[in-house]
């Protein structure tokens, strides 16, 4: 049962052949594949981490830009509002100024018209007065004349007819 013989040497030779060929066909290629896989996984993980980091940075950048844009928009709105108000104020002021100007102008015109009217009235009053005065004088004259005539007539009457009366 226990017989130590050349089989021992044969088996050692077998073992070495097996070890050599397994090293060539199994261990080295398999370890290479394992290393490659490790490298690939590490690379992928690193790439994923990098991409995540990049995405985070992009997000941050985007958010910052959004915040800036919002701020800018608010600024623009505020500025527009301010400008609008200013413009409105300007328009109101201009309108007031214009109104004042128009009023003054109108007042001036009114004044002028009044002056003119007054002058005209004065003239007319003078004319009328003259006319009335003239008339009056004329009337007076006529009256005197008539009175004279009447008196003449009466006188004539007195002489002729009065006696009869």
């Amino acid at each position, binding site marked *: 049962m226990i017989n*130590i013989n*050349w089989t*021992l040497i044969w*088996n050692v030779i*077998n073992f070495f052949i*097996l*070890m050599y060929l397994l090293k060539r066909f199994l*261990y080295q290629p398999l370890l290479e*594949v394992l290393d490659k896989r490790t490298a690939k996984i590490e690379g992928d993980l690193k790439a994923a981490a990098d991409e995540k980091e990049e995405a985070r940075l992009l997000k941050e950048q985007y958010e910052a830009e959004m915040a800036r844009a919002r701020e800018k928009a608010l600024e623009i709105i505020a500025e527009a509002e301010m400008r609008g108000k200013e413009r409105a104020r300007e328009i109101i002021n201009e309108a007031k100024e214009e109104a004042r100007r128009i009023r003054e102008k109108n007042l001036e015109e009114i004044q002028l018209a009044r002056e003119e009217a007054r002058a005209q009235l004065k003239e007319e009053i003078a004319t009328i007065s003259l006319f009335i005065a003239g008339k009056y004088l004329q009337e007076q004259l006529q009256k005197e004349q008539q009175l004279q005539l009447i008196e003449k007539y009466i006188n004539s009457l007195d002489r002729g007819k009065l006696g009869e009366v």
Partner: protein
Amino acid sequence: MQPGPKVLAYFLGNENLPITDTLLASWLLVILLILFAYILKKRLKIVPGRIQAAVEIILAFVESQIESMLPGEGRKFLPFIGTIFIFVGVSTVFGLIPGLVNPTGDINTTLGMALMVFLYSQYLGIKRKGVGTYIKGFFEPIFLMFPMNVLGELAKPISHSFRLFGNVVGGGIIITLLYQFFPWFIPVPLHFWFDIFSAFIQVLIFGMIAISYISVAISD
């Protein structure tokens, strides 16, 4: 019943060069393993298939066992220790194939392995420590321990080889005996026990002891 290797022929007719059934089985095993490795090599992929994944698990296991006792040297010793695991492991279950025998059921196989481990560990011990320190190691802790240390060292390959051999042959003898008494039922679970379970444990022990001998030899 005559357990043990049977001589089938003689190499070149020389009676000193017997060709036993265990030797034939181990030749066949080596050829099959090389073919398997060659085919696997052709089909290696980054994303492994089932067989590749299984082989990877086995090799990673062996590497982790080496790493646990020889930190940082898993890759270096993987071909040697890995081949021991694979050769001894497959040898031990080879007998399950009808018509074949376990190469590890022959003391020549296990002793061959054990002597290789022994010589390799001595070589590594001398290489790493230097001849002086290596020889000095036999006189530790005191001078008187020299014969004990030498005997202890020489006993290593013997205990290493006979442990596996004894287990495989012992299991084989028990199964053979039971075949004669209960040919139909009992041998099946016993085959499982001796040829699969116990065999794997023995292979694990054989490999771990090989690693520990190397580890002891090169440690300061």
